[in-house]
């Protein structure tokens, strides 16, 4: 069906016949003009720097810098350590976050909003500020040590900060909302009737949970876990502030190579490896990640 819907008055040289179908879409030239700023910004600020980094890692035309990563035990330890920490943080976020997500999905409007606020407030706080808070909480004369001494649990201040455990604790705190929100989405999509049907058929509440709710929440669990893991791999601020030299992660190693040791090709090689691993996980799990990347659940 073709109707002459519009004869654009300000474009006398080129009026176009628009059908009710083609009018839904902008013309190719308009689309290209609209997309140009984006392409320019991405080319200058994203593609060019990353490709330059990639090229730098091969400077001298050799794979020498990549070989250094696997050859030297220190660097290999950082790589495996990063994966280990990321796994621990993901599991911890899952164990602590699932009950919160379940509560958020099951409670009535008022209490659920309170719980949601407890999840959103840390999410909306800058990572830097949260890491700073952990530094002051865990330091020698920080609140936690004070509490332990005052209640008599320990005699002197414990070394809580600048350890691997501190990094894991702080990172779990920062990444928990990213685990909670996808699980909440999955649980929300679950009709309450399913559990009621299970109870109706004779299952106790625990069995109904294990047999019905838990398996159906797995897509959310999976999405949240992948998101947490991928984020944990590339984390810089929190390990840099809360961790010490004994708990170096990939990102802090890259930072150190760039700003302190000024070994830029090596830093580039490390960055490329980190980027490759991140991309690998994102591509492998892109369909599950689509559940959590939508910002609908973030605000």
């Amino acid at each position, binding site marked *: 069906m073709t109707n002459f819907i519009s004869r654009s008055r300000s474009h006398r040289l080129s009026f176009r016949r628009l059908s009710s179908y083609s009018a839904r*879409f902008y013309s190719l030239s308009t*689309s290209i003009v*609209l997309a140009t*700023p984006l392409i320019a910004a991405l080319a200058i600020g994203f593609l060019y720097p990353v490709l330059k980094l990639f090229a730098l890692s091969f400077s001298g035309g050799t794979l020498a810098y990549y070989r250094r990563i696997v050859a030297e035990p220190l660097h290999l330890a950082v790589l495996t350590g990063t994966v280990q920490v990321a796994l621990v943080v993901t599991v911890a976020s899952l164990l602590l976050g699932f009950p919160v997500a379940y*509560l958020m999905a099951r409670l009535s409007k008022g209490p659920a909003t309170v719980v949601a606020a407890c999840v959103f407030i840390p999410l909306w706080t800058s990572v830097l500020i949260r890491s700073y808070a952990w530094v002051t909480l865990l330091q020698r004369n920080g609140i936690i040590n004070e509490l332990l001494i005052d209640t008599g649990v320990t005699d002197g201040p414990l070394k809580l900060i600048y350890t691997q455990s501190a990094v894991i604790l702080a990172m779990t705190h920062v990444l928990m909302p990213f685990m909670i929100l996808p699980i909440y989405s999955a649980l929300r999509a679950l009709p309450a009737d399913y559990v009621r049907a299970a109870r109706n058929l004779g299952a*106790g509440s625990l069995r109904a949970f294990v047999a019905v709710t838990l398996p159906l929440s797995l897509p959310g669990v999976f999405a949240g876990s992948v998101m947490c893991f991928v984020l944990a791999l590339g984390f810089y601020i929190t390990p840099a502030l809360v961790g010490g030299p004994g708990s170096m992660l990939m990102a802090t190693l890259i930072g150190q190579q760039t700003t302190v040791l000024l070994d830029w090709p090596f830093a580039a090689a490390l960055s490329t490896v980190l980027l490759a691993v991140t991309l690998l996980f994102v591509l492998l799990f892109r369909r599950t990640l689509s559940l959590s990347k939508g910002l609908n659940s973030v605000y």
Partner: protein
Amino acid sequence: MILDVFASPAIRSYSAAAGIIAGGAAIGGILFFLLLPTLIVIPMSLSETNYIEFPPRGLTLKWYSAYLSDPDWMAATWFSLRIALATTATATITGTMAALAIVRGCLPFRTALQALALGPLIVPHIVLGVALYLTFSPLQLTGSFLGFLVAHTVLAIPYVIITVTASLQRFDPTLELAALNCGANRLQAFFLVVLPNIAPGVAAAAVFAFLASFDEATVAFFISDVGGKSIGRKMFEDIDFNLTPVIAAVSTVLVATSLLLMGSVHLVNARKPRP
């Protein structure tokens, strides 16, 4: 099945009571764990002493006045604020135009473009920070307004595109067709019909862009310089070398800003009926 044992009435009532108490305490602990770091900066910024005490010894605003009277802190704050506002403008405009092209345009490479536009979300900030530092360094762009603008715009664009795309997809295209039918051209139809309808989405996108720039710490750390230091970099350095409650005062101001902005976005969007 063994779990059916839990279904027997006597065990159910006891275990229910115990379960609720234990579960409530555990959940309360987890929620407290989530909130603690954000909330702790507030009493810390008001405490009389250099370190926080419980119960607090005295309340004072001296750390806030120290923050407002320190030239370094104020310079960093204004620098970050100017960059965030400029980033909001550029990212929102670029992102909205791109979202229009993706949703309502007829680009042959539309999917690839959308995937590429979400790239800065996927690439770890450390990689991007190092890459930008190595690119800006020979060009003397570290610590410059332009360098920061480019970097932060790239970081903010994905958020704008996701938000505005969602908004555009909820917008009924026949409204624009009706405007064209009444004689408007594309430009008029956009500003008079489309934009007012997607305004909440664009406003939310602008807030995300602002916070993506203002709260960002990793990339800002690497492209900061003596000539231009973002508030994130200054905080980072002070946490490492000069840990005083002034940082807590700065943090409280930043937290209040973020929460106010994100809270209003949340409220505005909660009032709209969502599909």
